[in-house]
């Protein structure tokens, strides 16, 4: 039986960059425990000898020629930005004061 606590969810939410309300934390802790119990059965059949599949196609690297091709203008690329300044995305402070 998986037992995901409120604090476990709070830590995951921090990693995933989502603020969650107390209601959401409590609800998700309960739901996650149930879901993890249901999906944990993948471990029953995953033997050492079975290679993992990460992707359905056996692709390695796909390259293109390094040539200039049409792309978005700066105005187009910035058209959806919440804030912009001098042809750049304007973002809130990233580094601390120290």
């Amino acid at each position, binding site marked *: 039986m998986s037992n995901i606590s409120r604090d476990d*969810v709070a830590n995951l939410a921090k990693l*995933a960059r989502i*603020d969650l309300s107390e209601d959401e934390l409590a609800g998700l802790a309960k739901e996650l425990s149930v*879901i993890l119990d249901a999906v944990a059965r*993948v471990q029953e059949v995953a033997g050492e000898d*079975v290679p993992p599949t990460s992707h359905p196609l056996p692709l390695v690297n796909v390259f293109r020629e390094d040539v200039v091709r049409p792309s978005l203008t700066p105005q187009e690329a910035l*058209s*959806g930005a919440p804030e912009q300044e001098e042809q750049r995305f304007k973002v809130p402070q990233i580094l601390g004061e120290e």
Partner: protein
Amino acid sequence: MINKSAVEMAEALSKGEITSVELTKAHLKQIGEVDEQVHAFLHVDTQGALEQASQVDAKRSAGEKMPALAGVPLALKDVLVQKGIPTTCGSKMLEGWRPPYDSTIVRKLKENGIVILGKTNMDEFAMGSSTENSAYGPTKNPWDLTRIPGGSGGGSSASLASFQAPLAIGTDTGGSIRQPAAVTGTVGVKPTYGGVSRYGLVAFSSSLDQAGPCARTVLDAAYLHEAIAGHDPLDSTSINAPVPAVVAAAKDGNVKGMKIGVIKELQGDGYQAGVLKLFNESLEILASLGAEIVEVSCKYFDYALAAYYLIAPSECSSNLARFDAMRYGIRSGQGSAEEVMNSTRQIGFGREVKRRIILGTYALSSGYYDAYYGSAQKVRTLISRDFESAFKLADVLVSPTAPTTAFKIGEKSNDPIAMYLNDIATIPTNLAGIGGMSLPSGLAAEDGLPAGFQIMAPAMKDDLMYKVGAALEVELNTKWQGPILNSAPKLGAK
């Protein structure tokens, strides 16, 4: 005219019996009359559609050679970007966003003269099986407005079933084209992974996501399939090989001598009796047409749902990191970039999306990675092997598309596991990257609602699904004395 197939509309257009502007106006009128009840569309682009239609008409009257579907209208799932047209993915996160470019699918639709009517409703970021997870309210099933139209592409399926569009585009990560088709009495195809470009498709789970055609007939789906498929240098996972000849296969529709494998694990417990009865009747029809029905076993399919609900949330937790309130979408909150991100993602994402991001973050976190995500990837290998063995015994594999007919809106929204079970028969094909089609198998005896028949084919042999689907469709339409949607209740202006 709006009740005709897309191919019939295309014929009328090429004979000059109707113009694309007239045809587009007829569909816009239907949208105006019924979509208040159905809520299939999130955005209707009246002006853009009419402009596109008049361009097609002008080219046709100038004597230009026109593509097969030129002038026929289409509904586009709101997960594909179209330049200048609001694209929300059913999420508050992207409210008001207008993409600066066209997805490859949209570019191909425009090149083919297919008229884009608007964007259809969906579960937020394609996560769901009922379209109830849309931030803009649920879509209703035209067969019964108290029931779900399937999901995540419920807007696309409902638009077809209510004659608001003859063609639609869907995307299928675990069944989001096929299960909505099944519960609305329409046709939906998930092509082989890599068969249709993902460029401009907002990613949910990149190794599973595949866009494909939705229609009311198998032949209509085939024409749309050929219009959107093919190699795209802008999608490094797009397959560089000729598109399977699906139109020719749909026209051929000959199953004599084909081996059709019934998957033992995709029936029985959990499947509605009426759905299974219709499935078996379809098998009898295929046998009567000269196909050989064999039973195959795919013993690891019992683990497919569990593997899917680790792999898809894991990939989504990574993919949805792009919604960071910095480059597009909404921004909320004060303080540092991190605080703004945290706050924006709290109000921008709905409940199911948060649930999956948190689940995926857990499955990928150190200490749990091997046990969850790693094990799920191994199950994925076992499922592909199951398919490989089964395709040695049969040309195509079949099952019911969804275990039940459409359920009531609200019935399963508080039980994630019950909701996830809808996809039990569609998920294995996504994990293996092969193609799957759903077409109507009839109306279930218990509730009079449509059920779906699923056909699965090996990678890049999508034509085989169309061959079998077309053969079955002809016989079923004869039995029903016309397309199944003729039996759907008439919606209209109040």
